[in-house]
C-alpha cells in the first residue's frame, strides 16, 4: 500500500502560514476596518482569515489535496449544507419583521 508521504518542508510551511495568519487576525481585530461605518468589515476579514486557515489544514494536514474524488465530494457536501443552514436561517431572520409583543405578555 503506497500513499503520498508529504515532505516535512510542506508541513512546516503550512504551520508557519497558520501561525502568521493567527498573528494577523489578532492584530487586525484591534483596528476598526470599516472606519466606523461598515460595522461588519472586521467580521468579514476575521472570517476570511479563518476560512484560509481551515483550507490549509484540510488540504495539507488532512491530505485532501492528495485524496480521492469521493473525499472531495463529501467535503464539498459538508460545506454546501453548512452554507444552506446558515444562509437560509439568516434569510429568514433578517427579512422577518418583528411584531410588538401583545400587552398581556408584558
Amino acid at each position: 500500500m503506497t500513499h503520498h508521504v508529504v515532505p516535512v518542508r510542506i508541513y512546516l510551511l503550512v504551520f508557519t502560514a497558520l501561525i502568521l495568519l493567527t498573528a494577523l487576525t489578532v492584530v487586525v481585530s484591534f483596528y476598526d476596518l470599516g472606519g466606523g461605518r461598515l460595522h461588519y468589515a472586521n467580521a468579514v476579514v476575521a472570517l476570511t482569515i479563518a476560512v484560509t486557515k481551515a483550507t490549509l489544514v484540510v488540504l495539507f494536514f488532512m491530505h485532501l489535496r492528495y485524496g480521492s474524488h469521493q473525499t472531495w465530494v463529501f467535503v464539498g457536501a459538508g460545506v454546501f449544507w453548512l452554507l444552506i443552514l446558515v444562509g437560509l436561517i439568516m434569510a429568514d431572520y433578517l427579512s422577518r419583521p418583528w411584531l410588538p409583543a401583545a400587552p398581556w405578555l408584558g
Partner: protein
Amino acid sequence: MAETVESPLQHHFASAEQQYEASNLGMWAFLVTEIMFFGGLFAGFIVYVSFYAEGFAEGSKHLDIALGTVNTLVLLGSSLTMAMAVRSAQRGRRNPLLLFLGLTLALGLVFLGIKSVEYSHKFHQHLVPGAGFHFDSPVAQNVQLFFSFYFAMTGMHALHMVVGAGLLTWLMVGAARERFSAEYYTPVEVTGLYWHFVDIVWIFLFPTLYLVARHQ
C-alpha cells in the same frame, strides 16, 4: 506457542487498499455530520449576535485574548505534531510515531489546562450563566446569552478534545505494541483527521468569540 498475529485486513474487504479507503471515507462522513453539529451552534450564535450586537460585544471583551491566542497556537502546534505522527506511521517508524503522538497529547492537555484556567476566571468574575451571573450593564441579559454560547461552544469543543486525548492514548498503546506499520496505519490516519477537524472548529471559534468586538 507463538502468538498468532491477527491480520488487519478484515474478510469483507477485497484488499487492504479498499479497506483503507472505506475507513478514511467513513471518518470523513462522520466529520461532515460534525460540521452540521457545530454548524448549528454557529448558526444560533450568528442569529443572536445579529439581534444583540451590543451585549455580545460587551461579553466578548471579557474574554482573555492572550490566553485565547496562546491556546490557538498550542492547538495549531498539536496539528503539526499530529501530521508528523501520521507521516511517521506512513513510513513505519515506531519511535518517531510514539514521540509525535506523545507531543500531540501533551499539547492537547496544555490546551485543556489553559481552557480550565479561563473557565475558573469566569466563575470568579460571576460570568457563568445562571443564578450566580452578575454583570453591570443595561444589556446584562444579552451578555448572559453570549456566555451561554461561549460555554456551550467551547465546552463542546473541549469535550471533543477529551475524546481526542483518549484516542491518542489508545494509539500510543497500539504503537508501543507494534500494531501499526507502513502497510497498516489506518487508525493513526483517521484519528489524525478527527484531531485536525477539532483544530478547525477552534480556528472558527477563536475569532467568533474572542475577536469579533475588539475594535469597538
